């Protein structure tokens, strides 16, 4: 049995079926990300003045990731164009570039996540707050048993508000030191994970979902680059359409990042 309209266009829609399918899927994706962006806006405007963090993310890493995704959009398009003009070697090259760019993006994103995961805010018994990156926990460190010490590279502040705007002149000029804190001095210790505050919750949700899309897209592109490319030999037109469909998905994911980057990193 032959699957209809994999190459030919349906007369009523004017599209081959896979293209119609991916656009319907992308429409549902717009609703998914649109809902989360709306949540971000509502959460942000409902914060009291000074309650929303600024400068918590590394703009340089975000910029590099933006460049990587922009380049990957170009290589995806070139891979499709190479298929269109029946240059299989070029297709292989451009799609390999897309995969490498995507993996680099995920690597950088993992590094950013790790950086947040080892960043701790510690409420001290004297009412001050120690904030910084974890260097080490002593072998016997246990908050429940009140044993051991934890060492951070960061600073101590009087008030939580001082940690909210890291672009402020005071935060920029703050001196970071190594601090060793005994468990007996710790009232509460929490890393900058999703449950730290509203910003980290929406940041991890939005970027995590986006990273999952990048990962899924990379798997599909890898399949089409590797074992799936056998179809090119028997039905090049259908294979080219598959590349176009995967390219449409990839462009959508890149487009989401174009909105995520300024919203999360620059504002």
């Amino acid at each position, binding site marked *: 049995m032959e699957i209809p309209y994999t190459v030919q266009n349906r007369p009523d829609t004017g599209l081959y079926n896979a293209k119609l399918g991916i656009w319907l899927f992308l429409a549902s994706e717009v609703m998914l990300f649109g809902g989360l962006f709306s949540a971000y806006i509502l959460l942000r405007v409902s914060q009291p003045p000074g309650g929303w963090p600024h400068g918590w993310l590394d703009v340089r890493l975000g910029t590099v990731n933006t460049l990587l995704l922009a380049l990957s959009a170009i290589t995806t398009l070139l891979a499709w164009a190479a298929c*269109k003009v029946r240059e299989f070697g070029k297709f292989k090259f451009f799609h390999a570039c897309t995969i490498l760019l995507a993996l680099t993006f995920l690597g950088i994103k993992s590094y950013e996540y790790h950086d947040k995961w080892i960043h701790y805010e510690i409420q001290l018994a004297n009412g001050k707050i120690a904030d910084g990156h974890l260097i080490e926990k002593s072998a016997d460190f246990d908050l429940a048993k009140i044993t051991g010490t934890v060492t951070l590279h960061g600073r101590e502040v009087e008030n939580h508000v001082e940690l909210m705007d890291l672009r402020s002149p005071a935060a920029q000029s703050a001196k970071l030191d190594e601090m060793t804190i005994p468990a007996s001095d710790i009232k509460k210790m929490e890393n900058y994970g999703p449950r730290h505050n509203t910003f980290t919750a929406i940041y991890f949700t939005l970027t995590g979902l986006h990273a999952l899309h990048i990962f899924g897209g990379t798997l599909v592109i890898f399949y089409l680059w590797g074992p799936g490319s056998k179809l090119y030999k028997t039905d090049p037109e259908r294979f080219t359409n598959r590349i176009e469909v995967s390219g449409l998905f990839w462009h959508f994911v890149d487009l989401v990042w174009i909105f995520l980057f300024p919203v999360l990193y620059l504002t």
Partner: protein
Amino acid sequence: MIFRPEPQATKMSLKAFHLIFVTLLTALSFGCAAWAFSAGKNFWGAMGIVAGIFVIVYGVYFLKKLKRISYL
């Protein structure tokens, strides 16, 4: 029932989507430049403008290069 002729088939193509992507990337580049200037980072602001111009040049080049590949 009257069906549309074949040339309509190339609509909603990757080429058209890429053009939207390039347009938004241009807006992002100039937006980043404005952000950098407002934050007093003039070098990065200038880089943002250069990036925006580069993306526009690429967009024009891309349209010319892929003229024969498909309609928008």
